[in-house]
């Protein structure tokens, strides 16, 4: 018996061969993705040619021929980029008009954001119970840090600016729009007519109006309805509108996910005695949100970029700072490309990170091929 088994194993092993060398590894990847067929090969060659046309001059302009020192645009004399303003202005690009001796408060709240995010985004971290509580209380902690109170000097929101303003408005919108979107999506599928009609009306009205219109409403018209003497901070109004706008889109994205869940899942959850809310929280939403990840991240990224619209209430976010510098007599005509490039880079880093994280999350949540 043993001998038989061994010989069978040997036979089985004999038939297992490694794949041909040119189909795996780097060579295999290149053959498959870059040189697979004449169309692919042609496209590869064209791409290489375009990169060769674009990259070296860009590199020359941005780094090799660039000016890095000087106190005004007049000192930028080469035909490369003018980065001399970075030295004086980078703080404004990042902090706006926040009082310089309080920059540490912005920095601290950004540093604290990392562990808070980590505890929400990743599982299996040590001290996860404390971590989650910390993550939950993070919005309050950072609000106190940024706005002042509890012994810290008060800073009004009109001092907020630069990329920090985009981050604050964007994060607040992201944190709030997901739960509001979930509630609206469930509301739209509710059996109770009042809740359903309200959700549909809310989603359709908000989605049917351009964001900039909503922002004007928030800034100009809302004031007319508030009793005299009462005023709501301008930045908070804008953040509420951006959040509401994103929530309406979010609701539809999540509704798509909910509709993809087979009816049997609802029935099985009911049959084991989970009520409506527990069925939703434990069975339906985890699956629906997983399906909706691409759409959710899409909405997040859109929301984050929409924060540049704070310019209409006279706040200078990173784009506002760029425009401000471009119209400054010292730098006029010298820094148009450079300032926008920097703003684009900031946005790209954040948006691309969100995109990569979502791909990672999708892979981690995939239970079919583990």
């Amino acid at each position, binding site marked *: 018996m043993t001998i038989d088994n061994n010989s069978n194993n040997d036979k089985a092993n004999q038939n297992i061969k490694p794949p041909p060398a040119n189909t795996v590894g780097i060579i295999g990847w290149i053959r498959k993705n870059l040189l697979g067929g004449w169309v692919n090969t042609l496209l590869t060659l064209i791409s290489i040619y375009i990169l060769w046309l674009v990259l070296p001059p860009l590199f020359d302009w941005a780094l090799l021929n660039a000016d890095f020192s000087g106190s005004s645009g007049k000192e930028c004399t080469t035909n490369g980029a003018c980065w001399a303003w970075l030295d004086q202005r980078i703080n404004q690009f990042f902090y706006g008009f926040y009082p310089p001796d309080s920059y540490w408060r912005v920095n601290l709240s950004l540093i604290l954001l990392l562990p808070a995010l980590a505890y929400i985004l990743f599982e299996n971290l040590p001290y996860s119970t404390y971590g989650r509580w910390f993550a939950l209380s993070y919005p309050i902690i950072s609000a106190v840090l940024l706005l002042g109170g509890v012994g810290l000097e008060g800073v009004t929101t009109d001092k907020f600016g630069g990329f920090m303003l985009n981050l604050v408005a964007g994060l607040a919108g992201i944190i709030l729009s997901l739960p509001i979107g979930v509630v609206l999506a469930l509301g739209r599928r509710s059996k109770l007519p009042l809740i359903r009609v309200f959700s549909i009306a809310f989603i359709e009205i908000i989605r049917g109006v351009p964001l900039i219109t909503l922002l004007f409403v928030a800034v100009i018209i809302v004031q007319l309805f508030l009793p005299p003497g009462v005023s709501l901070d301008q930045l908070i109004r804008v953040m509420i509108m951006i959040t509401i706008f994103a929530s309406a889109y979010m609701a539809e994205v999540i509704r798509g996910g909910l509709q993809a869940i087979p009816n049997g899942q609802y029935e*099985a959850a009911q049959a084991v005695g989970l009520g409506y809310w527990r069925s939703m929280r434990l069975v339906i939403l985890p699956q629906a949100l997983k399906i909706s990840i691409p759409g959710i991240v899409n909405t997040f990224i859109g929301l984050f970029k929409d924060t540049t619209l704070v310019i209409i209430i006279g706040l200078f976010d990173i784009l506002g700072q760029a425009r401000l510098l471009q119209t400054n007599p010292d730098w006029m005509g010298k820094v148009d490309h450079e300032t926008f490039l920097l703003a684009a880079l900031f946005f790209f880093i954040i948006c691309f990170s969100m995109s990569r994280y979502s791909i990672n999350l999708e892979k981690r949540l995939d*239970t079919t091929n583990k």
Partner: protein
Amino acid sequence: MNENSAVIEISDLNKWFGNFHVLRDINLSVSQGERIVICGPSGSGKSTLIRCINRLEEHQEGRIVVDGNELTHDLKNIDAVRREVGMVFQSFNLFPHLNVLENCTLALIWVRKMPKLEAENLAMEYLHRVKIPEQAQKFPGQLSGGQQQRVAIARSLCMRPKIMLFDEPTSALDPEMIKEVLDVMVDLAETGMTMLVVTHEMGFASQVADQIIFMDEGLIVEQNTPEEFFNNPKSDRTKLFLSQILSH
């Protein structure tokens, strides 16, 4: 049977889907420990009938009383009934985002409020009983249909129901896997569980059932012991059905 020991009492049950009269004047009494197989052609209302028993479907007329709780719009009664009634579906309906063990412990932890460790021990006990303890950490998508259905049975049993409903539990399975699921169901029947089984597995019916109910067009056409049902069917419709189902 003693009238007091009835765990399910259905009287004058009527149900419509829109204008379609799917259940017509159904009367059925099931005693503790009784095993009933319901068969009939598709569209005869047999699935709808057992889905009414845990209110996955609402009935419009008549009374359904399960273990002393009448099914009405009162949510408390519905919850009480669902705690006592387990259900196994044709398409398994395991929760794909949870592993096998979590599928079994979910309701124990959230509905029965059982501590996690205790719930896991109980779940493992039932996974042993359906003979797949070694799959506890896998996800449903990695299991064969027969294994998934056995997990679904274990998931229901964990809640220690008084009554188990089976809605065509083997209809979505390959022939090889039907046996492993039926074996589990036969084992379960031997423990004295009250079972209502919608199935076309006539071998299982004759081996396990106390009563066989034959339904057609929303009516209970015939209700009898397996011996009488197979050897001496009363109605022509039953004879036709049996000749078609047993002809292969």
